[in-house]
């Protein structure tokens, strides 16, 4: 029983990482109908920036805030410079552009920082925390809490501020938004910025566990895809819950199904993607898109 709870709790911790990245994917998908394959690599690149700032002697939270700010600006710039020119191109072209970004970020990171793994610090204390019968690492708690706090802030932002409302309107109906005087292109750039910001936090939270190297987000991106598919690419809430479910499932299956163990864990994510697409393609919380013809 204790092992079970232990695995659930640590599954929630990694699940919140998947949730953050899945949420970034969903935000961009909702606003532009594009799946950003470079989301994970953008997060990895941001994490390297954090590492460089830490190497330069900055305190952790200063580096954290600096990275978050840089990621936001970077996301906006990528939308403006790379995505905007292909905005009206067929969806496949845009997907290829994001795949190109994936390769570019990966190679540039390898070129600047080399492919040798680097340890990345956690800001949380090293002694474990007791929660009733189980003990969890403080980093697990932080890994869960930091994205959660950000999610709540994001929710309040979208729900209660005029800018958040304008962003939702722009994502939903760009034509009407422009007629209502909302600068849709600016909202899309902001959306990319926020998504990159979320990704960078996911990167910094996961790096202490997987250690930093240019391909560290590869697997996590697949889990995030599984999370977004499970929750529904049209539902931010679904992406978050999907992330937590995937995190817990992955851990439990890895623990209790012997032949899967740790080596085959990633197949669980791919299995989830396939099953969801077969059984309920719109995901648990997604809306099936119906078009009048």
């Amino acid at each position, binding site marked *: 029983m204790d092992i079970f709870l232990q695995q659930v709790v640590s599954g929630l911790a990694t699940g919140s990482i998947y949730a953050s990245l899945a949420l970034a994917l969903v935000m961009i998908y909702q606003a532009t109908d594009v799946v950003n394959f470079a989301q994970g690599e953008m997060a990895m690149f941001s994490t390297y920036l954090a590492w460089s700032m830490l190497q330069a002697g900055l305190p952790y939270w200063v580096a954290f805030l600096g990275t978050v700010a840089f990621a936001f600006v970077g996301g906006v710039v990528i939308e403006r410079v790379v995505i905007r020119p292909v905005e009206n191109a067929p969806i496949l072209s845009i997907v290829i552009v994001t795949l190109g970004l994936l390769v570019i970020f990966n190679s540039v990171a390898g070129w600047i920082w080399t492919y040798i793994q680097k340890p990345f610090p956690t800001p949380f204390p090293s002694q474990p925390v007791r929660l009733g019968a189980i003990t969890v690492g403080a980093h697990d708690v932080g890994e869960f809490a930091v994205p959660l706090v950000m999610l709540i802030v994001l929710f309040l932002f979208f729900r209660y501020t005029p800018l958040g409302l304008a962003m939702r*309107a722009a994502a*939903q109906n760009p034509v009407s938004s422009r007629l209502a005087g909302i600068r849709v292109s600016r909202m899309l750039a902001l959306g990319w910025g926020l998504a990159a910001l979320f990704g960078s936090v996911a990167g910094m939270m996961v790096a202490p566990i997987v250690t930093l190297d240019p391909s560290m987000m590869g697997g996590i991106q697949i889990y995030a895809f599984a999370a977004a598919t499970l929750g529904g690419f049209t539902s931010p809430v679904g992406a978050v819950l999907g992330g937590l479910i995937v995190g817990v499932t992955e851990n439990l299956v890895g623990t209790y199904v012997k032949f899967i163990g740790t080596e085959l864990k990633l197949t669980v994510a791919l299995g989830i993607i396939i099953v969801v697409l077969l059984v309920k393609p719109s995901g648990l919380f997604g809306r099936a898109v119906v078009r009048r013809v």
Partner: protein
Amino acid sequence: MAPILEAEDLQAFYGRVKALHGVTFSIEPGGITTILGANGAGKTTILRAISRMVRTTGTVRFGGERIDRLAPEAVAARGVAHVPEGRGTFVNLTVEENLRGGFYARRDKAGVAEDLDRVYRYFPVLAERRRQLAGTLSGGEQQMLAVSRALMLGPRLLLLDEPSLGLAPLVIQEIFRILRAINAEHGVSILLVEQNARLALDLADHVFLLETGRVVMSGLSSVLAQDDAIRRSYLGY
């Protein structure tokens, strides 16, 4: 009085297809003008050309200022509110969020609360449903919401594209009664495109007639309603 909107040699293009072949017209401030014409004559395109949703040449002046090179959102911010055909409500936002989204571009935030009260007074059913998702409203209520959202922009000119489309006669009457009230009480000029010519001529004080992308006739609606050609083609008697 100087016209609120003047278009001169306005041409519009969808890709390489020309939909307007140089129309020239002007709209008096405080009036209601309607555009009559067969399907495909370019009525909707005129509205889209004014709000910059389509590529154009020629000039459009609003309150004396050229707006024909602005972005759609900039035209809206200057006080031109366009209610597109098919209403264009935000179906996954609540009624109140739709209305709040309507005034994002507005400069004088002070008038907002007052305007929200005003549209709820015009359309009490929207006040009852303010927390409901717009997609769950009936067609008539969605049209009311679309008009209300346009009013939240605090416009000086309201562009209406087929507001009666697909609605029951009683609902149409109600909406047109309120359009008249909005025009009379607040001096908002209206440019109306409407396939129901009788309804349009009833509401409007000016008319112009569009045929295959050109203005072929214009004048007071009371006069043109008596014209034999118009009666035969658009009123059917």
